[in-house]
């Protein structure tokens, strides 16, 4: 029980921080305020949890997932909360990869294990915090790097390009 409260507290504190766009400005000085505009093209942090290297020989190695963001420009936006979607998404997440990704993007550490579905359903604050991380945090520009082959996939205007040079196909 104490552990659950502690996990909850950690997520809350951490989420409380990232909900504020100013957080990104502080940690990513190369990300100009203009990039916080809501209209700008972007990709949700959640999507990163489903992307791996496109090179066939990398896929068998666990180091190819998740991809590592490099020179990332982030932005936050407002998205309507969809509780049912989030609760059902939870078991589909690779939490360990999410923890890695968020740490690499400079956020405070996530707990080792995900909240339970019951916790998410009964705790509105927790739900909104997770929503904020997955659905409202965006990658706009930068690179996604494979931990095996080292290939850097460019992300421009929120769109990653996974077309491979001929020597990697």
């Amino acid at each position, binding site marked *: 029980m104490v552990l659950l409260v502690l996990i909850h507290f950690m997520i809350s504190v951490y989420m409380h921080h990232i909900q504020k766009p100013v957080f990104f400005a502080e940690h990513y000085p190369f990300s100009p305020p203009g990039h916080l505009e809501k*209209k700008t*093209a*972007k*990709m*949700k942090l*959640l*999507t990163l*949890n*489903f*992307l*791996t*290297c*496109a*090179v*066939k020989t990398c*896929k068998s190695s666990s180091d190819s*997932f998740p991809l590592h963001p490099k020179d990332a420009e982030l932005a936050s936006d*407002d*998205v*309507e*909360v*969809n*509780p*049912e*979607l*989030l*609760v*059902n*998404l939870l078991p*589909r997440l*690779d939490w360990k990869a999410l923890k890695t990704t968020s740490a690499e993007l400079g956020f405070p550490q996530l707990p080792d294990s995900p909240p339970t579905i019951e916790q998410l359903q009964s705790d509105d604050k927790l739900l909104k915090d997770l929503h904020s991380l997955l*659905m409202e945090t965006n990658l706009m520009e930068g690179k996604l790097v494979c931990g095996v082959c080292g290939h850097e*996939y460019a992300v421009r*205007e*929120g*769109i*990653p*390009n*996974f*077309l*491979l040079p001929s020597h990697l*196909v």
Partner: protein
Amino acid sequence: MMASTHNPSALPSDSVAGDVAKLAAAAAASQAAESAEAEAYEKTHVHGVYEAIAPHFSATRYKPWPAVASFLQSRPPGAVGLDVGCGNGKYLGLNPSVYMVGSDRSASLVALAHSRGRQLQEQQAQEAKKRIAQGELDATTGTGGESSGAVVATEVLVADGLSLPFRERAADFVICIAVIHHMSTRTRRQEAIRHLLRCVRTGQAGQPGGQILVYVWALEQGNSRRGWDEGGEQDLLVPWVLKSQQKQPKRPKQRKGQTRTRDQDSSGVAASNNSGEAPPSEATAGATTAATEPDPGHTDPVFKRYYHLYRKGELEEDVLAAGGAVITSGYERDNWWVVAANEPLPSQST
């Protein structure tokens, strides 16, 4: 390809086995060459064409296919889905309760899909504001009313169908609409299906695995004006006439060996179908070598896309060859479709 299927141990002598090994090596080399050739061919006759016609193509693609729409709408909330070959992304926001990521080989179409998704979101945000203003929605929580949540239609990326960047066995479903028929060899078509199957969850005890929905153009199009039907040529170059914006669409002259047809979604509803799309004119043609060709009847450029028209039963065969299990399959307006999963078949609880 055939040589590599021989079993050397069944052969009478080492020298023959050596010859077979050489043959197998040669076959592997020729297979690699064949694959490179097929790739180069598709670059000219598929990828290059879509890059060139992207805005025009996209403008004619907004009506979802009924079987695709019902497949998407029957997915449970929170399901994670992929749309491989998403084109302009018309299926991405169709069910707001699922999370979808789209990929396409054409960067131009992906960019269009992304801006389309953003427009959808803005519209939705404005409607939500209106509802808040009208007091129908709780402004403090942003929830309520009939809204089931935000439409997610912006998650798109550029990728090749044979080198997909998706975490394996993670998705609940994959749709692949009017894509596989652009692959120019059967090996590549089966390989593409194998890649789709690799993206979806495998079934576990009591839990059905993820499903893929594949749509391809049919050879049997007896009710369309294209004039294709059973027993005909299956590998074709199909022209796309890029109409200039200023001109009113004119009815092209009927010429010998040409049938005036309309294309929708390369899944082609016949011209008589009142679906509200504005299809470009399209004509059937045999294989030619150029992707574009001056047409004496037109000043508009004509782009030729490669298609493999599937005959009845062929799609199911390809699914089986790719290691999948067919759940249901059918025919809808000039297209064959199949819903499949990884072996073993998920329990049919629903």
